[in-house]
């Protein structure tokens, strides 16, 4: 059982930090458990907190191959699992050597004519693999049934070939933005991790790591303003990605410290809705201070 990538929770944090992913305790603990118990990891959380980045970071530190299945509305078995290469099969039949039908039939349903899609690829490899199923909630309900077999037992049944079982169990990560409730059956097969916005200390570390050359005082102010924005009742709360973007913008602008003017001019980097910007302006009392001066 388990993929056996890590030795302890601290090990997870330390290794992920090496590739630039700073994991909070909940994240590190759950990754460690998923690794040890050999269960898929279902990651939910607001957009831009690093759900997908977590999978790529795990793949990078463990030197695994990353197999990614991007889900979308209308994705089907042929896109997710496998497909027979019909054109090639037809060619093979027309090029027919002198053999009986039975021989031809066993031949054209061989490995050579199988097009492997992400799920089958992840299962059938012999090297360590990280399987990332991105935005699972975008896929239709039918595809979940397919995932149950794959994630429950790490095996796939191809009628013509039989059941293919993973020799090397992949480290599976599913991400979801919760636009649709995933089925209870799928949830039970996974360990659940809700990644929320990081606390201020962690976010400060992230900003320093991602924006080298930023002064501590500025990083500190940025994180505090972002925390204040998140406490407001906005339509779209700024995520980590936006914090980093903002810090980068401020560095480009050559702002040494934050003041009303800088904040007001660059708020568009952080907030994407006009009424959010208006509300944040009121909440941070930007106008009031400007009027007074």
């Amino acid at each position, binding site marked *: 059982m388990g993929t056996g990538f890590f030795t302890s929770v601290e090990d997870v944090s330390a290794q992920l930090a090496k590739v630039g992913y700073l994991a909070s305790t909940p994240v590190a603990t*759950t990754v460690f*458990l998923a690794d040890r118990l050999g269960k898929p990891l279902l990651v*939910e959380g607001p957009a831009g907190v690093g759900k997908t980045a977590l999978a790529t970071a795990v793949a990078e530190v463990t030197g695994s191959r990353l197999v990614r299945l991007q889900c979308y509305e209308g994705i089907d078995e042929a896109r997710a699992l496998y497909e027979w290469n019909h054109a090639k099969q037809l060619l093979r039949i027309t090029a027919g050597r002198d053999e009986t039908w039975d021989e031809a039939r066993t031949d054209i349903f061989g490995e050579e004519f199988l097009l492997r899609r992400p799920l089958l690829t992840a299962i059938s490899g012999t090297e360590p693999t990280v399987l990332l199923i991105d935005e699972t909630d975008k896929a239709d309900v039918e595809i979940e049934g397919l995932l149950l077999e794959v994630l429950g037992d790490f095996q796939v049944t191809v009628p013509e070939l039989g059941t293919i079982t993973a020799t090397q169990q992949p480290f599976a990560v599913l991400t979801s933005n919760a636009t649709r409730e995933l089925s209870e059956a799928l949830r039970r097969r996974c360990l*659940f991790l809700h990644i929320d916005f990081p606390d201020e200390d962690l976010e400060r570390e992230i900003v320093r790591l991602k924006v080298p050359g930023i002064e501590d005082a500025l990083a500190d*102010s940025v994180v505090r303003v972002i925390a204040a924005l998140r406490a407001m*009742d906005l339509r779209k709360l700024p995520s980590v990605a936006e914090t980093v973007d903002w810090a980068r913008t401020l560095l480009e602008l050559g702002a040494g410290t934050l*003041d009303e003017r800088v904040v007001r001019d660059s708020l568009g980097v952080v907030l994407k809705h006009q009424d959010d910007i208006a509300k944040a302006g009121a909440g941070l009392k930007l106008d009031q201070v400007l009027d007074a001066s």
Partner: protein
Amino acid sequence: MTAAPGLTGRLAEFVRALRAHGIPAGPGETADAAAALEVLGLDDRELVREGLAAALVRRGGQRSVFDATFDLYFPSGIGVPELARENAPQDRDELRDALAAALAQGDEPALDQLAGIAVEMLGQYGIGSGPGGGYSAHQTLDRLQPQTLIARVLAAMRAPADDFTDRLTRDEIRRRVEDFRGKVRTEARRRAAELRGRSRIAQHAVAPAADRVDFLLASRSQLAELRRTIQPLSRKLATRLAARRKRASRGQIDLRRTLRRSLSTGGVPLRPAYRHRRPGRPEIVLLCDLSGSVAGFANFTMLLVQALRDQFSKIRVFGFVDSTDEVTHLVDTGAADPEQLGARMLSEAAVVRWDGHSDYGGALAQFTSRWLDAIGPRTSVLILGDARTNGGDPNLDAVRAIRARARHVHWLNPERTALWGTGDSAALDYAELVEMHECRTAQQLGVLVTRLLPA
């Protein structure tokens, strides 16, 4: 399983308590949780907490319930906290000094300790005088008054230079004080559980998840938390409605178009054409009781329907207490500031004429005489209210008139079904005319909205 028998028993008890709060953890999850404990060990309480959460919690929004229950079943200690036994603050003033210092530094471990000491020092009641005594978070906070420390902490933290971020400090301290209140509540629950038994406290003292809070009993902060769920909930409902429409549109074969299409394949109908129904977007009319107790429910529903506005071709919202008025424009602009929505409706719309007691009969009569043309054959009408007429005439004829014109009429009642028809409630009379649904929590509302709205 090598875990100690005491531990497995505790784990099973813990899972039972979670189930009682609507976290449906089955035996499979319990086994996972035990395996997680085995892997992680018991050295670090936070690791144990995260490990169990990964195995037992199944969706966001259940975490607060999980944490509160976890603190009861896997407490950080027993009895008085370590520090309180030596060199602890001796009286309330010293405690306040220590608290102010800890708040200024944002020192989490110290705040944990102080919460413990505060409950021990200020929160006891009736202990030693037989059963019935315990620890009260409310009493602790009432005597300690941590919110009055804000100005003091602010002064201690104020940097000499007047930086822009300084104005954020006050809010930060306020959040820290709020966190501290949470710690005191946790601590009081823990101490009470030692006296009264865990399962009892878990049953009564753990606040339910936001979408299971009764609208009529929700506190201010719970309503605020509920409002935060509106956007995600509306996204979810929109996907559900869209998926249902898609399903509804396949199936029936359109013979005429199939035949015409088959001409291009030599008369063989290779690609059948399906009959598509026009995705008719329903019009919706909300008629909401805005009087005191049910206002929270009405506001939440209005905001939810407003968030779902692209699912409807037209939304009109009417509010009433003892007089009816249209409030559509207020809900529109109120989306920017949902907290004030209720107050603004009461002040800017003519919904109160006399004394602010709801008068269903009069309000319905006014609606039917002035705005009956808002309802057409494609309109779904949702009436929101507890149907408590304060003894007045329920005016069933008005409801009949509405029903005769509308496509659907549904009544959402935030009261328990058992209470319908008791006292001054005319719920059962109305229920004979229109379908009435119990709608006590955001969860029930979500289910009802997808079920009731026509595809």
